[in-house]
């Protein structure tokens, strides 16, 4: 092993972090500055790193764009519904995989995870005819269903890993106290599993919130369009490319998500099981 505290490794790792940080944050920086530049500056051949003159006009026009609100609402409905259903399914599936022994448990789990190994663009090709034949094309349930298909395996696996760590003695104690299996799950296991459940919910939510491809393909109607394709088709279509507007609108619509994350992030680090055993 090399020494992590040595000067050289500090410099190497520090440099690495700067590079990674740049990749992570530069796009956000570019989004913000682009949104604040006026069109003349925005389309200069040699882009400016810092806006010479700050303008909020892109933001005002984005707020005035009423379609954005419809898209935002649609995204909230599809993402909220798919994340909720997905989390509920993953909770029960994950717990069953973690704490019950039955034939076929391992194969079923592997089978579920194997769905994750295909590029999701590829799966869209087979999903499309399925949706068509089920009459789910251009419907919200269809889109929600396809999001669940993709987020469920990983969500289940995440909760499976967590539930596996719930001490068996805790469950045994409740059983000895006279609780039924479902009762144990709902009154003992669930209450101590809030942080991982919130994490899984956010993961599933992000999955559908960030989606462009599925929504763009499966939804045709304007009134059901979600925010990703909505932004794209509003600002960057065949006839014009309003980069400043796109950036300002993107920033505005990410605000609710950023705020939600700030409130929920404490769940990620909270350790609720402390004091249960030992």
């Amino acid at each position, binding site marked *: 092993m090399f020494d992590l505290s040595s000067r050289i490794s500090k410099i190497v790792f520090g440099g690495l972090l700067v590079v990674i940080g740049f990749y992570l944050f530069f796009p956000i920086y570019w989004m913000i500055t682009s949104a604040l530049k006026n069109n003349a500056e925005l389309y200069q051949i040699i882009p400016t790193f810092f806006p010479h003159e700050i303008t909020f006009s892109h933001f005002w026009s984005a707020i005035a764009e009423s379609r954005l609100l419809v898209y935002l609402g649609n995204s909230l409905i599809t993402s909220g519904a798919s994340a909720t259903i997905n989390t509920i399914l993953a909770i029960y599936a994950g717990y069953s995989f973690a704490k019950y022994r039955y034939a076929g448990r391992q194969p079923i789990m592997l089978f579920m995870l194997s769905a994750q190994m295909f590029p999701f663009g590829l799966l869209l090709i087979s999903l499309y005819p399925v949706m068509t034949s089920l009459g789910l094309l251009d419907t919200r349930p269809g889109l929600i269903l396809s999001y669940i298909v993709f987020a469920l395996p990983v969500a289940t696996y995440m909760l499976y890993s967590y539930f596996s760590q719930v001490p068996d*003695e805790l469950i045994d104690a409740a059983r000895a106290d006279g609780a039924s299996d479902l009762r144990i799950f709902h009154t003992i296991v669930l209450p101590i599993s809030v942080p991982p459940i919130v994490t899984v919910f956010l993961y599933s939510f992000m999955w559908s919130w960030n989606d462009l491809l599925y929504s763009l393909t499966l939804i045709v109607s304007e009134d059901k369009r979600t925010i990703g394709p909505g932004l794209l088709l509003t600002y960057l279509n065949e006839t014009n490319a309003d980069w400043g507007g796109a950036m300002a609108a993107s920033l505005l619509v990410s605000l609710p998500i950023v705020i939600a994350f700030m409130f929920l992030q404490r769940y990620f680090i909270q350790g609720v099981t402390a*004091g*249960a055993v*030992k």
Partner: protein
Amino acid sequence: MSRLELKDVRKSFGTTEVLKGIDLTVEDGEFVAFVGPSGCGKSTLLRLICGLDEITAGQMAIDREIVNDVPPAKRGIAMVFQSYALYPHMSVAQNMGYALRLAGTPKAEIEQRVLAAAKVLRIADYLERKPRQLSGGQRQRVAIGRAIVREPRIFLFDEPLSNLDAALRVEMRIEIARMKERLGTTMIYVTHDQIEAMTLADKIVVLNAGRVEQVGSPLELYNAPVNRFVAGFIGSPKMNFLTLGARHGDSYALPGGEIALRAGLEGATTIGVRPEHLEIVEAGRSGTLGGTLTMTEHLGSDTYAYVALPGTEDLLVVRLSGERALKTNQKVGVALDPGMAHVFAADGTMLASARPVALEAA
């Protein structure tokens, strides 16, 4: 009345048989300790009695009612787990009242029973706290309290004190002894701690590899172990074992000397002598074993002397009472009273115990 009866109880996990036919009776109000090396099946047996696992074969009865298929809560048994297993999101009061709440006990009665148990265990001031806000000893008390409020017919403890530090362990041991006096309920207690078993139990069950080796009172096991396993397991420091050499009549060669055993013992191969039945004397005294004193340990109340005998690997442990100044790395004699020797046959069964009186009793 809470009498527990096991008849040829077996338990297998898949193809491995962990318990290989346990016959055992625990009388009403008795305090029974299960001891045995780690992995011998103590916890498994306790879980079967509790009803957490199903027995593979055999019969289990509580007060003459066969409970093989009765779920845990209906058996009237409460178990205290090694890891405490407190519900982390519930307060102490909620933890203790959980079983009663499930059983539909009226709220007022739950509160009153929880408070009564908490007072006895001196945790009444912590009823609103969460387990993580308690010390190890307090958590242990809550775990015991959770069992007490149910007023079970039988208490089960699975190494309840093994997570506590030495001082707290002694304190809780006394607490459990008091609880036994006060409640008079049947209790089964798994431990690997000799002192806990010897001091608390009316009856000790020695388990080894899924079988009962011996059942008896602490002193019976100490004085008249039925075989070499029990002899070596009960007592601390462990019993010394010496292989018998060439025989002349009733006299046998031993490393560094010889011993004359009781007449008529056929098939004797090994003797066992407890450290407290040996004495260090000057080298060369007749009738003693000659060896080299290699090390001493001073415990204040006792001194342990370790003697290397010629031709043996294991050091002979001699327990001397009080402070004894001994020079190490010198030749010494070890005095051995033949009447204090346990004699074992090749298969480990005991041919003669140290005290003939106790042997007749056994």
